[in-house]
């Protein structure tokens, strides 16, 4: 009888010391910024090129400075400081109830939906306190993908176009033809375009779970954000879809700063460049993925990674 040999472990090659991309044009990924559909620079590329380079320091995008978060009387995050940089993936790990999701949601002020949520400390986006930025403008610059794929019950096209429509400085009823290049580009960046290019009018809910999640990523990318927040994006997906999305995350960090919350330590190891380990609302350890996973400085980190709790 044949012996069963385990298949080789699939590892995604990630550069642990990523080149930090300067935000000045030309735009990475999209060649010279010319859209493949129209041959002219897409609106997305133009907008990205039009960004003032000086306003954006080369690497750091967001800075979390001694932030504490509370729901009512209960403090769920205490005195956390972290940098969020473009060109790298920041992984937040920790047991349930460690406050990592709350911290993530506070980055685009989604915690404010919950009544009684409060914050101490500073969170800045490109040097500007996020409380000073109009909330909807902030959420277009810092978008989020959730644990459960949550496409709207509309067509694939409408799901992505929704993110583009009704933004300030845009005609409310943009025609489909004007939106289509941007929608397709967002789908391409999310690695979904090839699978759905033929039929953008299919209902989004007819896609598989993994495709739905990539559609949600496309939707989050369509507004051309500076920071992408991922709240356990793969926990509802099968391993193959998970691998596809992990590869995508690693690719995307070139153009957006990515923060990912995950329960899955292997996943954090695979995709994250820097890892922050949180426990009961406190930041226990922050360092490069290698350092945190291979030479943890704190006993609690060692216990968590070794499976002692969580």
């Amino acid at each position, binding site marked *: 009888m044949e012996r069963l040999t385990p298949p080789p472990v699939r590892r995604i090659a990630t550069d642990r010391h990523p080149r930090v991309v300067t935000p000045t044009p030309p735009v990475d990924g999209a060649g010279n910024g010319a859209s493949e559909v129209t041959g002219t620079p897409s609106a997305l590329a133009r907008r990205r090129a039009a960004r003032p380079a000086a306003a954006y320091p080369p690497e750091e995008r967001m800075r979390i400075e001694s932030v504490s978060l509370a729901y009512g009387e209960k403090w769920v995050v205490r005195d956390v400081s972290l940098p969020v940089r473009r060109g790298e993936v920041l992984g937040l790990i920790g047991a349930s109830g460690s406050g990592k999701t709350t911290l993530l949601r506070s980055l*685009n002020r*989604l915690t404010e*939906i919950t009544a009684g949520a409060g914050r101490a400390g500073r969170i800045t986006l490109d040097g500007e306190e996020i409380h000073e930025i109009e909330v*909807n*403008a*902030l*959420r*277009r*610059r810092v*978008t*989020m993908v*959730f644990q*459960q794929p*949550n*496409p*709207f*019950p*509309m067509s694939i096209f409408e799901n992505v176009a*929704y*993110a583009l*429509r*009704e*933004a300030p400085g845009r005609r409310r009823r943009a025609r489909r033809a004007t939106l289509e290049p941007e929608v397709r580009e967002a789908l391409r960046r999310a690695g979904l375009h090839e699978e759905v290019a033929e039929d953008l009018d299919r209902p989004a809910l007819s896609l598989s779970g993994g495709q739905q999640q990539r559609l*949600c990523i496309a*939707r*989050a990318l369509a*507004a051309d954000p500076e920071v992408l927040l991922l709240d356990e994006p793969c926990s509802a997906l099968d391993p193959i879809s998970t691998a596809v999305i992990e590869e995508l995350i690693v690719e995307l960090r070139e153009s957006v700063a990515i923060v990912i919350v995950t329960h899955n330590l292997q996943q954090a190891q695979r995709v994250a460049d820097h890892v922050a380990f949180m426990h009961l609302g406190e930041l226990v350890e922050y360092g490069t993925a290698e350092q945190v996973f291979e030479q943890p400085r704190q006993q609690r980190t060692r216990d968590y990674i070794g499976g002692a709790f969580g």
Partner: protein
Amino acid sequence: MSASAAQPPTIVRPRRESISSWPLADRLAYGLCWAVGIGLCVVALGIVAFMFVKGISALRPSLFVESPAAGVLQEKHSGGFKDPLIGTFIITAVGIAIATPLGVGIATWLVEYARPRWLARTVESAIETIAGIPSIVLALFGLYLFARPMFSFLSASASDGTVTGLSFINAGIIMAVLALPLVVGTTREALLQLPARMREASFALGKTRATTIRRVLLPSSRTGIASGAVLGMGRIVGDTAIIVFMLGIGSSKIEGLGGTPVLGTLRGTGTTLSAYIYYYAPTGDGNSPNKAYAAGFVLLMIVLALNALVTRLTLRSEGERAAVRGIGRRMWAWERWPWSR
């Protein structure tokens, strides 16, 4: 080994729970539940069958195309119910056209905003109160309200200047009040059933609450809104008190006021099927019960069609739809009924 493997395994049927092991009171209650359930079906089928038999035998094609003879309260009724039928459609259209946007607005506010809380609670109680008001009381109030001089533009005035308050638009407004709680209720349910993550997804894209409501939440609850509207239509179609009070006793034809065609009709008086039945019924002034049966049959068909529409709209999944179709097939498969064997 191989011999036993070739044999299909015997299926063991576990012994089912026997009702004889139940206490007597439970057994009695069980029997009672069955009895009332079947009793209800018998009553419903009985009414429908009665109206079928009585209605179809009295139904003539001419009834649909002839107007009622003038003066329904006089002896010797003749003519058909063309005008009442059209009147039913007009009043339903007016009522639901007013009730749907109002109801959707109220429900949206209740689910998505509802601040301050005391106001939300007050609105909720107001909706419940309206749902509990008998339609004849609503009609009385409506007649008082719309007979005020300030509403003279909505209905005809007598020669001495008194406002009659009788018109399709006035009756339609009061009908809208009648249908409002149904629209609010179903829309609210539909909005409450939408997952919170749908709202979050929209907020996380930097959309305002208003945009989220308009482009995501309301489109996603359109089946709920539609079934609320259809339920409200069923309520309007069947109501008699408001028609008798607010479209005028004794109106038998749709009589528009002068002026533009549509507005004139809306400001004018008329009648509906429900009022037609009321006047022609054997008990009251009527002495043409056959016509009442025919009109009643038509009204019942309209209501059943609306109910079927609600069922169709509210069955979300294909599976549920298939199950209902299955019931239909089983009902029609006569050869499978016990007495056919």
